[in-house]
């Protein structure tokens, strides 16, 4: 048994107090006048003193309570325990989690974070090992479990800011896996971050074991001022046959002070278009509209910047504008009636996003050339185009085209052809009552997904008086059924293309579907699905992965140039997955192209959540991860060796002594109260 502060034992002198109280002090409280102490003084004094201590248990309790409290202040610890801890707990396994997300670019946060990491590395003892983990949206080990401080510091020096979002979950999971595998008796994860609240949803399934401690080190400042441009919107218009675009930018202020006279400027292809002064209230947003500009090229890049603050990354917003590309649709009908495709053409003519470029053609005139540059072919109540056109249509579908077959009165299909998802059967009349209706829709299908929500399209309102029975193959997908269970629509994938057959007419001859409100979205959805239409993305977010083959509708060898001018070649044999890790504009050129104009551009912006710098309370995160309150200060954790202070702290004997002392005091109070009730004077 040793003591951390043995000087406190001087306090044992306080034991004299109760003894004096027992011997002298309390008797002196009452003075009795007596004529003469001549005889009293003749009685031996020593015997009197000894006999005056009448309550030995009380005296002992008081003395023991004082002794225990004094011993508690002297902070005792067991040498044996210290040796055990020093022997078994000397080495540490430390995982340094360094936040390198975009938000760490605020002011000098990242520099301070690196300094903090350096101090943790500096505190490593001889037997300690550390892992440096850099994290943003994802986490990666920059340096795996090493005791070499030099290598750790070198890895730390190469750490740079990224444009990624903040997510604590992956980093903490990585730390957990590293520390769980470690055999070191003391395992610690040091999280150095600005503790953005947006980085922690609370739903991450991270839980540290009992042996693992999480030490938060926050570099967040007490207050922040931050302007951000989270998004832009475009309004397209036509002027003199050219497309004109009006850009409206949103500007948000995350600070507690209003921002006045913020210059918000628009650049298109590097040319400044306009600068507008804006005023944004504290914790508020506003929108700024710029003058419209003419869309001159196939892809034009734009940049909106707003003011300046300690976090410049989110003050600029990149985007790419492309000309509106209409979906080309060929409607093939029998040609015997003028208005066969009336409803269909009118419905498709209404669309603007996307716009549909519709051409109607009798089946007899369909040629392979007519299928060129088409996205979708609709066979509206007619047969498969005869001759070469039939084969061309098949090729068209296999190469990615879309085919919609409307099976009504005159629709026929060769028996041996496997393009159609179903065999066409005989027409069925539903003349009794109110007729038939479409009773089932596969809402999980992309084409019908928009109708899933309540009051998003009432198909049952349409009266179907007649329809063709469809015998669907086992590999085909049924999209809709009539109320009697007969298939109303089915889909088959052929090559890269899609074929859908619809079991009743899309005009007013067999049903009144064309007169119902649901008709227009139904036609649009089917056509967009078959055309594999994707709305052009004007920008992406950092961290997203794009598939170039999907984006550019085809495979070829391409060169991707990142905003920091890093060139990556994507061979044609690969799908071309590119992770967008930088803020700015990616340029994608065909390999070997010498043209100055890039083939395509992808604008990439920060995650809008990174602009919200509001920090969370680090102990909150610690409590969520460890299941216990943060009990470790960074300074204590940084101690290199197991000091006797640590040993004493871990053993915590003083607490028991203090508790015992206080308990004795309470007991003493009870006893003395009881005794004093029995006799007026102790």
């Amino acid at each position, binding site marked *: 048994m040793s003591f951390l502060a043995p000087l406190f034992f001087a306090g044992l002198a306080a034991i004299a107090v109760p003894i004096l109280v027992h011997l002298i002090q309390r008797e002196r409280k009452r*003075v009795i*006048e007596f004529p003469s102490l001549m005889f009293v003084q003749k009685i031996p004094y020593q015997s009197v003193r000894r006999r005056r201590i009448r309550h030995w248990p009380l005296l002992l309790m008081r003395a023991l309570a004082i002794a225990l409290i004094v011993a508690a202040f002297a902070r005792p610890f067991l040498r044996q325990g210290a040796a055990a801890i020093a022997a078994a707990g000397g080495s540490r396994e430390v995982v340094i989690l360094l936040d390198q997300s975009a938000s760490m670019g605020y002011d000098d946060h990242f520099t301070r974070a690196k300094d903090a990491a350096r101090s943790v590395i500096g505190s490593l003892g001889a037997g300690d090992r550390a892992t440096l983990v850099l994290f943003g949206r994802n986490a990666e080990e920059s340096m795996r479990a090493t005791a070499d401080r030099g290598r750790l510091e070198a890895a730390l020096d190469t750490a740079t800011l990224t444009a990624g979002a903040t997510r604590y979950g992956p980093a903490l999971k990585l730390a957990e896996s590293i520390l769980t595998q470690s055999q070191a008796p003391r395992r610690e994860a040091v999280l150095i971050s600005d503790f953005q609240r947006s980085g922690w949803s609370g739903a991450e399934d991270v839980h540290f074991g009992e042996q693992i401690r999480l030490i938060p080190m926050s570099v967040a400042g007490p207050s922040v001022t931050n302007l951000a441009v989270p998004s832009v919107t475009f309004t397209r218009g036509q002027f003199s046959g050219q497309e004109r675009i009006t850009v409206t930018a949103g500007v948000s202020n995350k600070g507690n002070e209003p921002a006045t006279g913020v210059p918000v400027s628009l650049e298109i292809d590097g040319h400044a278009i306009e600068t507008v002064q804006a005023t944004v209230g504290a914790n508020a947003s506003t929108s700024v509209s710029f003058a419209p500009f003419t869309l001159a090229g196939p892809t034009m890049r734009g940049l909106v910047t707003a003011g300046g603050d300690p976090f410049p990354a989110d003050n600029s917003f990149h985007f790419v504008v492309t000309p509106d590309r209409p979906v080309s649709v060929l409607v093939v009908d029998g040609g015997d009636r003028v208005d066969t495709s009336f409803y269909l053409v009118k419905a498709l003519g209404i669309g603007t996003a996307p716009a549909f470029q519709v051409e109607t053609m009798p089946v007899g005139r369909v040629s392979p050339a007519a299928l060129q540059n088409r996205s979708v072919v609709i066979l509206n109540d007619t047969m498969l185009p005869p001759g070469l056109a039939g084969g061309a249509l098949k090729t068209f579908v296999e190469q990615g085209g879309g085919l919609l077959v409307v099976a009504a009165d005159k629709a026929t299909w060769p028996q041996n052809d496997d393009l159609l998802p179903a065999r066409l059967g005989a027409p069925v009349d539903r003349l009794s009552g109110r007729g038939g209706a479409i009773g089932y829709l596969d809402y999980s299908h992309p084409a019908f997904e928009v109708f899933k929500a309540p009051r998003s399209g009432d198909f049952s309102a349409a009266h179907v008086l007649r329809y063709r029975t469809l015998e669907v193959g086992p590999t085909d997908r049924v999209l809709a059924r009539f109320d009697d269970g007969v298939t109303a629509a089915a889909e088959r994938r052929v090559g890269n293309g899609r074929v859908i057959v619809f079991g009743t007419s899309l005009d007013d001859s067999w049903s009144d579907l064309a007169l119902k409100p649901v008709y227009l979205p139904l036609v649009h959805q089917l056509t967009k699905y078959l055309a594999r239409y994707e709305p052009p993305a004007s920008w992406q977010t950092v961290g997203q992965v794009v598939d170039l083959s999907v984006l550019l509708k085809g495979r070829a060898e391409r060169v991707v140039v990142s905003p920091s001018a890093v060139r990556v070649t994507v061979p044609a044999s690969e799908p071309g997955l590119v992770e967008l890790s930088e803020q700015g504009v990616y340029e994608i050129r065909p390999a070997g192209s010498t043209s100055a104009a890039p083939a395509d551009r992808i604008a990439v912006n920060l995650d809008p959540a990174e602009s919200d710098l509001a920090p969370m309370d680090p102990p909150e995160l610690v409590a969520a991860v460890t299941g216990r309150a943060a009990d470790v200060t960074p300074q204590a954790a940084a101690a290199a060796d197991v000091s006797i202070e640590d040993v004493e702290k871990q053993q915590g004997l003083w607490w028991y002594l203090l508790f015992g002392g206080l308990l004795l005091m309470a007991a003493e109070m009870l006893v003395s109260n009881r005794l004093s009730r029995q006799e*007026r004077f102790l």
Partner: protein
Amino acid sequence: MAVSSNAIAGARFVDPTVLSRIGNLELLARNIVDGFINGLHRAPFFGASIDFAEHRGYVAGDDIRRVDWRLYARTDRYYVKQYEADTNTNFTVLFDISRSMSFSSGGVTKLEYGSYLAACLAYLAQRQRDRVGIITFDNEIVTHVPPSAKHFNMVLHTLDRAKAERPGKLSTPLHRMAEHFKRRGILLLISDFYDEPAEIFDAIKPLAFLGNDIIVFHVLDPQEIDFDYDNASSFEDLESREQVPVVPDAFRTQYRALVQAHINTLQQKFSEQRIDYALLNTTEPLDRALFSYLSSRERLMRVR
């Protein structure tokens, strides 16, 4: 009103505590003494200052006028009649007014008790035409009223004004008194005698050697005898102001033994010196004190 069960019938002596309410000492003394005397039926040996004492044979040189001629006629021998000594003797109260006399455990103080006692005895003496005087003292003489037939009121006044304020010591004032007393008389010494017996006798001896009749009243409070305290306390000496922690339970037996030994020693030594000694408790009625005085007077007369 407490009545002593030992009191002679008719002598209704009130409790000293009640007496203390009577402001006038003369009235008090008269009440007590008259009541006492009435109850005593006037003892024959009392107040015979010119009374016949005895006959003795005539020797040459005797005054011829003292020859009892009637006896000569019967017996044909010359006898001389002897009478009591001078009737008007000096009656002096020596009253200790040291601070210890101010002690009281609840009733009257020893000083008050001593005052009543002195007043009563002075009244008795004055009634038989003795000259009364008083000397109060602590560690020195405080007041001196010489014995005189006219000084009774002064004695009462002195008793009334006496205050126990200073520490006392018997030897110094008594030695000075011994130098002062030229004429024999009755000395009534009232004190609590907190001194060593040897010192007390050293102080009293000179007075005794002068031929004075000394009557000693040892006045004590009951607590001084019984030491009947409950709790451990600090006891403070009234005279020296010294404090001593005391646990009465532990002390009592030894203390009582010491006090009793002191009293016994005094009693024994005083009787050896033919000094009349009476221990008085302040809760006792005064009749015992008066009776004690009178019996001693009787005894003195008989011895003579």
